[in-house]
């Protein structure tokens, strides 16, 4: 029984050979938006002076570039392990309080990475941290240093594994339970079923989430800065923020684009061409749950540890800062308006992103060709760039080519689309792979138009992916900073900008309240989004 490693059907044989015009139009529009940051980098890079050769040829640049690449690799591997284990436990086993753990294990995504890193440092720093103070009684004067590799890996893994968790979870829920039943009826053990049937079916979603983790690790600035890790983004920031040398920064950013392109190419090459959907009608039953038995406690300990490090510790530190602030009489003005702003921007942008991501994913899955692949791969560029690079590219484009549009809500939504559309495309793409194109064909042959087919067949079947994609996008938008600061309408504040304002002036109590609200509304959104899943686990 080996359902997935060999392709039995060419996708192209099942669907119509060519994509319909609207799909192509949306694909082209979205890719044009994605090309903007690249075009900007190209223009700035062409203006570079001679000094750039010194930077490019120095051993130091090479070393730091390698640091970032290795960091991305390690963080991705660890995130995938944690996320797949967590997804299994919360979907396929009889783990107690699965709904609770599902929400809790997604939540680290809501913690802005610099807040999370700060909290980890406050807890685990070598001297004067919470843990060292606790151990001081036992004569521990200093803990092993968290700074550098360990801190960067720990923080990035904890705050990005939910990308893989959400996409994997969606695929696990979308899987036809009949596949496992067949496997077991043919005598495979639980473990062997997992290894030979379930895991191979999860590859596309694990890969989709892993790409996001890798690109996040490559482009993040906050965590490496706080963890004193020598990352490539730091060099880019130095050029921008200290030397005001936009051309050198652009050339270095293009170096990052080259690495990202290589990763996208490799991921595409190793991608299995297998069919991930089942050919039969599927069962209507809930999948049988694996009994954890004596392993229940180990499973709970695992979930608890991850949740403690990724959520409870940051929230605890934030609460401590808040109480400290309240003690000295800090006030938190306008948080109601700011919270509504944040929700408004995130909901509107998420709606746009999902509406654009669905056709993009359909294009990539149903009409695989060189151009649809390039269009889909291109969508990752914005997410893989340091935020400041994309934000400045859009400042330049907006102010000079769309002045009416500049510093408006529309511009901000546009920026969020450029930055975060791959989060949604990846999640939707991996669930679409589980849906047999024959379902759509059947609907069409019964006389349903393309639009109706999309609404009444494709969207309901892809619901888990659409929801997972929405959750990823919502949470990520709510904590976005550089583009929000540069492109939002003047005076439009979000919770993330308030957190930053406090951190910028070293008044952490000022940061604590908006950060806690951010976590709270993220938890509510995740709960609402996941509650939509109820019916969608079954077909």
């Amino acid at each position, binding site marked *: 029984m080996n359902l997935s490693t060999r392709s039995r059907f060419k996708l192209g044989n099942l669907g119509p050979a060519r994509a319909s*015009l609207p799909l192509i139009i949306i694909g082209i529009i979205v890719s044009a938006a994605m090309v903007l940051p690249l075009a900007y980098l190209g223009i700035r890079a062409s203006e570079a002076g001679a000094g750039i050769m010194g930077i490019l040829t120095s051993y130091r640049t090479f070393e730091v570039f390698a640091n970032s690449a290795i960091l991305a690799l390690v963080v991705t591997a660890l995130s995938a392990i944690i996320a797949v284990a967590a997804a299994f436990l919360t979907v396929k086993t009889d783990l107690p309080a699965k709904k609770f753990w599902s929400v809790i294990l997604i939540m680290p995504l809501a913690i802005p990475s610099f807040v999370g890193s700060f909290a980890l440092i406050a807890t685990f720093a070598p001297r004067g941290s919470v843990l060292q103070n606790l151990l001081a009684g036992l004569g521990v004067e200093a803990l092993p240093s968290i700074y550098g590799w360990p801190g960067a890996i720990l923080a990035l893994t904890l705050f990005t594994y939910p990308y893989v968790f959400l996409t994997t979870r969606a695929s696990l829920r979308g899987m036809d339970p009949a596949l496992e039943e067949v496997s077991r009826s043919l005598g495979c053990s639980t473990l062997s079923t997992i290894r030979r049937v379930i895991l191979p079916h999860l590859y596309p979603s694990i890969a989709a989430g892993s790409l996001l983790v890798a690109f996040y690790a490559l482009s993040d600035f906050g965590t490496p800065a706080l963890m*004193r890790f020598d990352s490539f983004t730091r060099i880019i920031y130095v050029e921008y923020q200290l030397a*005001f040398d936009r051309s050198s920064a652009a050339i270095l950013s293009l170096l990052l684009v080259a690495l990202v392109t290589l990763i996208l190419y490799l991921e595409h090459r190793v991608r299995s061409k297998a069919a991930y959907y089942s050919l039969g009608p599927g069962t209507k039953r809930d999948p049988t749950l694996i009994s954890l038995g004596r392993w229940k406690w180990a499973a709970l300990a695992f979930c608890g540890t991850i949740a403690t490090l990724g959520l409870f510790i940051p929230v605890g530190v934030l609460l401590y800062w808040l109480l400290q602030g309240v003690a000295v009489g800090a006030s938190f003005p306008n948080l109601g308006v700011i919270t509504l702003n944040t929700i408004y921007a995130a909901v509107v942008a998420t709606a*746009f992103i999902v509406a654009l991501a669905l056709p993009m994913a359909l294009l990539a899955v149903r009409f695989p060709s060189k151009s649809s692949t390039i269009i889909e791969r291109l969508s990752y560029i914005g997410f893989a760039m340091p935020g400041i690079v994309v934000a400045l590219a859009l400042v*330049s484009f907006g*102010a000079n080519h769309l002045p009416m549009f500049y510093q408006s809500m529309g511009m901000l939504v546009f920026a969020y689309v450029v930055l975060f559309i791959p989060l949604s495309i990846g999640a939707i793409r991996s669930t679409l792979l589980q849906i047999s194109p024959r379902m759509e064909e059947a609907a069409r042959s019964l006389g349903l138009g393309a639009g109706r087919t999309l609404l009444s067949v494709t969207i309901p079947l892809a619901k888990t992916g659409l929801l997972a994609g929405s959750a990823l996008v919502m949470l990520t938008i709510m904590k976005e900073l550089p583009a929000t600061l*540069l492109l939002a309408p003047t005076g439009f504040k979000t919770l993330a900008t308030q957190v930053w304002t406090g951190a910028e002036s070293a008044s952490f109590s000022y940061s604590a309240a908006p950060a806690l609200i951010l976590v709270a509304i993220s938890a509510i959104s995740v709960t609402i989004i996941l509650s939509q899943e109820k019916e969608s686990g079954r077909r």
Partner: protein
Amino acid sequence: MASNTKFAIIGIIVAVAIVAGVAGFAAISNDNVPEQAETTGAPTMETQTLTIYSGRSESLVGPIIEKFEQETGIKTEVRYGDTAAMALAIIEEGRNSPADVYYGQDAGALGALAKEGRLLKLSDPLLQKVDPALRSPDGEWIGISGRARVVDYNTNLVDKSELPDSIWGFLDPKWKGKIGWAPSNGSFQSFVTALRLIEGEDRAREWLVGIMANEPVVYSGNSPIVEGVARGEVHVGFVNNYYLHKFLQTDPAYPVAHHHTNGDAGSMINIAGAAVVDTANNKEIAERFIEYMLSEDAQTYFATSTYEYPLVEGIKAVGPQLPIKEINKPNIDLSNLADLQGTLDLLRDIRAL
């Protein structure tokens, strides 16, 4: 094929709807966002809105800008962001920049804007309010408040008499592993640039290599250094003067104090300053803003709320701080600090960055 055409039509309608929707948001937000309070000030000024790009955060300068609105009746729209990012935004926006005034956190960003030719020369009466050493020699920007480099030390671990008068004293091996610094921090890099200007490239390198030999602990910025000093992770740290006072406010017994070196880069005074951008609609109103920031009210505000040094004669700094006049600051042109390339190359070369 018929249904394909229908799909195409639906798709185009959706695409148009999306574009229209986004444009709609643009229109709505343009109408709604600048919500302005009723003002009672001078009628001539009321018709104009002053757009300020502030690299200083709202918690620092928001209250005083609000007061400016109340007292002058001039409406403001303030965009808050990172000092460098806001300057870069003005440069990227080019001729279409909405900015009238740029208000930044260090002389480097102001110098970068001046170098791009994006600043207007300020009028002489305004310039004369501030020490020439703390404004642009060409009159393109002016210091509003002062930010002094200091050596912060842990009062439990270090006796004041042990602290050297010169930054060169920290090359002594007795400071091994006890120094905190932040080579990626802008203020620190301004300090290194000053060191190069004052003592020359070779001496600057010698000092940095000497400090590196003492295995300094690297921090991400000034606040983490002060906290590191307080926690005893390090005994001394190279920072700016105002960070400590925030911690002193929540904990008066915070075990950290300032030390000033004598006439070298370690006692440099940098500024937070403002400038009129060349795209300003009305230079006069823009200058009124800068004038207000140099008024007694505003200068007192900076002394008591941001703990920076006021730059106008007759207003005192608060807290346990040496008066700005008593700091033996080195003699340098702050606009030369805009050229950071050499500093970055040097820091990279000795592997501090």
